[in-house]
């Protein structure tokens, strides 16, 4: 088994909710004690519905926003204990691709300048070398260097996402957090970008954390998958396991809810009642117990911990399996 390149231990991110007068200050526990490890060269997928904390996990792990608690170990160094100055050289190795290719590129900058910026910040190469690197990276992501003189608005959504990928790839990172990178794209473009991400992974030996709400996309691209619900991991397993034999009732419901492009397949659907509870005021015990068809008395009071299920690789946080 390959060693972990990145290890997340009990990561927490609490956002304060603006306190009302005479009311105690409260917190939204966006990420509440998440632990997992990513091995070199693999893709870990993180799925869950809106507000489950998957994006916050990605951003906190990169220290784009400081964590409230927990540790992030990269190559054995604890990022949380480093000063911003010590962190900076490591940022080069840990990059992110954002969801919205329209909002994440500065509309007043030419593609060349967008791609030069990270190189200048990290003081890589001479001016000549930098320009050469920009041309190279545009070819690598399948755009062609002749596009360097254009502005973001001249590109389609798929092309913009290629620019976003080029921007994070130009620093030759080891880890890329891809936060819903294909969610804003049409299906025919989505597959182009997914293929590109896979090609780049092989070519540059990249390690991915792939965050998405789309179960089929995560299954396609990941080696191991974590399922989040209200700031916690409820299940974490190799994808074959997770999709073929999910153990957590939430994972089961989530998988059964996804529509399948086959009119003859009428899946046995588990329809969850109600909405996801407010993360500012999550239920006690197991956060899922309010919607869980199998909830027991114990689930209302005791919070289940992530523990091995049938194999050491398959982890689940549910009282049904303890």
């Amino acid at each position: 088994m390959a060693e972990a390149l990145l290890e997340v231990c009990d990561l927490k991110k609490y956002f304060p909710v603006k306190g009302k007068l005479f009311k105690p200050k409260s917190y939204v526990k966006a990420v509440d004690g998440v632990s997992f490890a990513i091995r070199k060269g693999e893709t870990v997928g993180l799925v869950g519905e809106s507000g489950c904390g998957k994006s916050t996990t990605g951003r906190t792990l990169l220290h784009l926003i400081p964590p409230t608690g927990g540790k992030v170990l990269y190559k054995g160094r604890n990022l949380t204990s480093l000063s911003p100055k010590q962190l900076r050289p490591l940022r080069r190795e840990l990059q992110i691709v954002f969801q919205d290719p329209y909002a994440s590129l500065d509309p007043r900058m030419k593609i060349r300048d967008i791609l030069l910026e990270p190189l200048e910040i990290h003081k890589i190469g001479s001016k000549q070398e930098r320009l050469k690197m920009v041309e190279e990276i545009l070819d690598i992501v399948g755009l062609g260097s002749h596009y360097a003189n254009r502005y973001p608005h001249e590109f389609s959504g798929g092309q913009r996402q290629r620019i976003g990928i080029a921007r994070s790839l130009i620093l030759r990172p080891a880890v890329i957090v891809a936060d819903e990178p294909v969610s804003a794209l049409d299906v025919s473009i989505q597959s182009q970008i997914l293929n590109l991400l896979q090609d780049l992974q092989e070519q540059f030996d990249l390690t991915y954390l792939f965050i998405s709400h789309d179960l089929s996309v995560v299954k396609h691209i990941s080696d191991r998958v974590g399922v989040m619900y209200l700031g916690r991991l409820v299940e974490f397993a190799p994808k074959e396991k997770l999709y073929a034999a999910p153990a957590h009732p939430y994972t089961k419901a989530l998988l059964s809810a996804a529509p399948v492009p086959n009119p003859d397949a009428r899946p046995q659907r588990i329809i969850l009642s109600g909405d996801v509870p407010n993360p500012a005021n999550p239920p006690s015990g197991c956060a899922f117990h309010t919607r869980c068809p199998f909830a027991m008395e114990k689930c209302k009071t005791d919070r289940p911990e992530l523990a091995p299920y049938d194999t050491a690789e398959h982890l689940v946080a549910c009282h049904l399996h303890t």
Partner: protein
Amino acid sequence: MEPILQVRDLHVTFKGEDGEIHPVSGIDFHVRPGETLGIVGESGCGKSVTSMSIMGLLPKGMGRVSKGQILFQNRNIVEMTPLQLQKIRGKEIAMIFQEPMTSLNPVYTIGEQLGEQIRLHLGLGKREAREKAIEMLKTVGIPRAEEVVREYPHQLSGGMRQRVMIAMAMSCDPKLLIADEPTTALDVTIQAQILDLMRNLKEKKGTSIIFITHDLGVVAEMCDRVIVMYAGQIIEEAPVRELFRNPQHPYTRGLMASIPSMDHEQRRLYSIRGTVPHPSAMPPGCRFAPRCDFAREACRESPPLRAVGEGHQVRCWLAEKGGADHGGSVA
């Protein structure tokens, strides 16, 4: 059975920065009573513009129906006066939009918004309208409906707002419901709830539905018949099983092959190269030819929509031979 809606050779023209564009250029289709017709396609294919023209909601001064007819129960919507349209819209043809937050008015309570149209179309008094509103909210599965009528849209979750939109659309028992990406903004577990609700309502009331979506999974689950649109044209039309079993147009096949499968492992996904053409620069001949793996000499000329099987039509020169496989296996 006589179709409830017939769209004949519909052309829609928009004023663009550099002259006119035609986001919908010559589409024909019909909807039968009680049927769910799916319209699938990617951004810019003209599916939403089509639904806007049926509702008479094209932005004034910008877009207009430049040719063709939209016959709703044999009356042409295109030629109706605004007053005539008002009587049909909301009462006989209702619509659900993608984003329930932007389609509800934030400064009125749910009860006021639901009640307004009930009073307008059904001629009920204030108290009766309120009772009807509460009844509708219960039908769409909203808990504590008596309180919700007094609440504002921001107090409800996305799924609940979409239920309110459905309650509003169904309150006058419309004959035709146009659902434009009704679950796209929702999470999968909530989407499953809403689709379930729409199926039940349809079975109970016998409403015809036009279901517009980009999600082939949702189409497979909800629709009886499907139209695939590309660049302002219908490129394939078939009953839902036939479409998924025997897709004929290279674009339809490409779309299906682009989706990662939940059942089996694929190392690489099929991808359609290039991007959708801009409406101001439509390629001559077949509009899909520049992205098509099977394009040939004949494709320089625009192919007509031709029947290849029972209720199955395709706009492709290659699909000529009675719907046989043309060796164009993708993926």
